[in-house]
């Protein structure tokens, strides 16, 4: 019974996130950007982990805020965007992946070998995203920006979660 309850919970939660992203994408006429954002975000976070809010509502709200930020920032950046900025974003992303990934969630404790497997997969998928985004830069800059900003948001979520964990350890030690 708990397995089915758990399955239903993650299906409903994921479905809400999915519908929110694609509805907003359709409303603003940015369906392709929604596809890129959702694929890169979901597939990478599966192996990297990172910050999660403590309720379904807050978590979906954070996802939505990140998505809207990526959509509108990608539009705003398009005129002054260059390969240097692109490479800098990718360097920040890869540094956070090599430095921190994966960061496990308190609700999903992992064994050392599982963490190692996820780390290898995360590095592999990150390299693939970086290569794809560099290819995209020469094919279609606007989609390359969306990919880069999505990767950047994943790295920020990793850093936030790392800081939160460090803070918790520090607070427990000082008690």
């Amino acid at each position: 019974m708990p397995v089915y309850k758990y399955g239903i919970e993650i299906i409903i939660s994921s479905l809400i996130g999915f519908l929110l992203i694609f509805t907003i994408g359709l409303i603003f006429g940015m369906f392709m950007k929604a596809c890129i954002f959702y694929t890169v975000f979901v597939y990478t976070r599966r192996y990297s982990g990172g910050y999660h809010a403590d309720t379904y509502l807050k978590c979906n709200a954070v996802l939505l805020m990140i998505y809207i930020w990526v959509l509108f920032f990608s539009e705003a950046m398009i005129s002054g965007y260059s390969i240097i900025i692109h490479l800098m974003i990718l360097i920040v992303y890869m540094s956070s992946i090599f430095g921190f990934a994966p960061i496990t969630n308190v609700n999903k404790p992992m064994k050392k070998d599982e963490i190692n497997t996820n780390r290898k997969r995360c590095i592999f998928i990150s390299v693939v995203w970086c290569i794809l985004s560099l290819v995209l830069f020469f094919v279609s800059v606007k989609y390359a920006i969306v990919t880069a900003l999505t990767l950047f948001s994943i790295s920020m979520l990793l850093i936030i979660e790392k800081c939160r964990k460090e803070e918790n350890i520090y607070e427990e030690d000082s008690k």
Partner: protein
Amino acid sequence: MKKIQNKILSVIAKASKSAADKACGAISFWGCYQPKEPAMLREKAKK
């Protein structure tokens, strides 16, 4: 009516079981809030 209801419920049950199995072992499933993973699922995955 009862037959249709049973069919729908069994499809939902199968989907939720499959989602739970896929989520087990992933650091963060579908990027959203992660509910507490049942210990039973973890034990089953070990076998």
